[in-house]
């Protein structure tokens, strides 16, 4: 091993954390005995549940703390409530959630307009950075988009004249 270490003397810290006991059959878990058996640990103080918080059907309760960032609301909220009726291992839990996420985007735009804010989607997408660092890429995308629009318009005009 000395020879092996010499081969790597140019790499700072080589082998400093080597652990021969850490082979695939050596468990990472540091079992603590009795406390691994059940749901009987001393729970932290419960955070007051004063907003709508869902909990997974695969646990009996709300965890002692939880995030309060965006409680469910609107149509997306209804879908989320439906999704939380399903266990985590079922598609019923996750597919409605993805749909809710997409609906939530539309709700977000409506909410922006309702509060007098016009969303600047170009700025939100960081297009300024794209233009600054990837100008040719942006122009290529713009050219492709322009070509597709022109093709659709030409096809429509041709269709009208044929009719």
């Amino acid at each position, binding site marked *: 091993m000395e020879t092996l270490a010499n081969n790597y003397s140019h790499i700072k*810290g080589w082998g400093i954390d080597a652990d021969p006991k850490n082979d695939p059959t050596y468990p990472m878990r540091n079992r603590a005995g009795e406390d691994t058996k059940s749901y009987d640990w001393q729970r932290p103080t419960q955070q007051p549940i004063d907003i709508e918080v869902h909990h997974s059907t695969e646990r009996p309760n709300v965890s002692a703390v939880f995030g309060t960032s965006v409680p469910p609301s609107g149509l997306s909220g209804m879908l989320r409530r439906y999704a939380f009726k399903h266990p985590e291992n079922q598609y019923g839990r996750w597919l409605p959630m993805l749909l809710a996420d997409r609906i939530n985007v539309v709700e977000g735009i409506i909410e922006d307009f309702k509060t007098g804010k016009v*969303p600047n989607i170009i700025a939100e997408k960081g297009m300024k950075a794209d233009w600054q660092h990837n100008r040719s890429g942006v122009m290529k995308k713009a050219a492709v988009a322009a070509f597709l629009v022109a093709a659709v318009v030409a096809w429509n005009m041709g269709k009208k004249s044929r009719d």
Partner: protein
Amino acid sequence: MLAMNYRGPLRVRIDEKPMPKIEHPQDAIVRVTRSCICGSDLHLYNGSMPDTRVGMTFGHEFTGIVEEVGSEVTKIKVGDHVLVPFNIACGQCVFCKQELYGNCHESNPQATAVGGIFGYSHTAGGYNGGQAEYARVPYANVGPTVIPEGMDPDDAVLLTDVVPTGYQAAEMGGIQKGDTVVVFGAGPVGIMAARCAWLFGAGRVIIIDEVEYRLEFAKNYAQCEAYNFREMDDVVQFVKETTDWLGADVCIDAVGAEAAGNAMQTITGRKLFLQAGSATALHWAINAVKKGGIVSIVGIYGPTDNLVPIGNVVNKGITIRANQASVKRLLPRLIEHVQNGILNPKGLITHRVPLEDISDAYRIFSEKLDNCIKPVLIPPSARI
């Protein structure tokens, strides 16, 4: 306060939002001094993580100065400059007692499969994150760690996720002296995993990606071999050939759901969401590791299913190890490594961006523009 505001896939902006408040006796409020955009934030940014709600603030890698503490907080005090591990952990549940701080059972009501994570959708607890001027930090007696005197805040902020995740990726690999380790993904975590593989005595470290500037960076930073899979006929074939036709002793998936390199995986995983992200890197890892080898997964996938060659796992007798990094468990050793100059986390930072320019920062990072490896966001109060 100013805070990042998610508006939908590929759309984020900075907005005025209400200040966070103490909601639990073990909470603290910190004034953020640094926060990063992580590769795993891109799963949220791209809209691939279920239950990512419009209006949420992302950010699970941050440092800050304690502004206020709840009545049960004893381990940190107002004025302390702390680094905040990305895991929210109670320290009391059966999993925390086993030092599985990434698997706490008292921090996420919404899903049992993942513990609470700052700013990482409601699937990970619904917490706002640190890409803001202020953040609420639950269980302040457990996670937040006072930044040692003299430590650069840029080093400290990378100890909240990137360094421990890269280190744990290597640790879970069970690397033995002289082993060949292949890391898939030359993002910040992959580069750190490659660097840390040497600490465990690897004999050869190879990193594989498609982005040339990142490979070049990895080669210098982690002193490893770096290869572009776009220049290969077949990645697995390449690994087999370069390892005397046996495969690598250890393969690390440091990519997760956004992987490129396989059209079928990309279409079904990233475009159609028929699986929980593209499992290309994991697929390669399983096929490129030698029989009886170890696959270590730190790349993040969504909660549904992925297409991977599980038959090969059985037939090759592979051990798979995976987890969210247990940051608190690893911090003492990693702080030591940083202080002794063994690890240089801030060397990964290529972009220091004002918090107000967050939309551009996300674009630069996600599109890999301007040779970006790791962007750090700096709020106005930390720029004075």
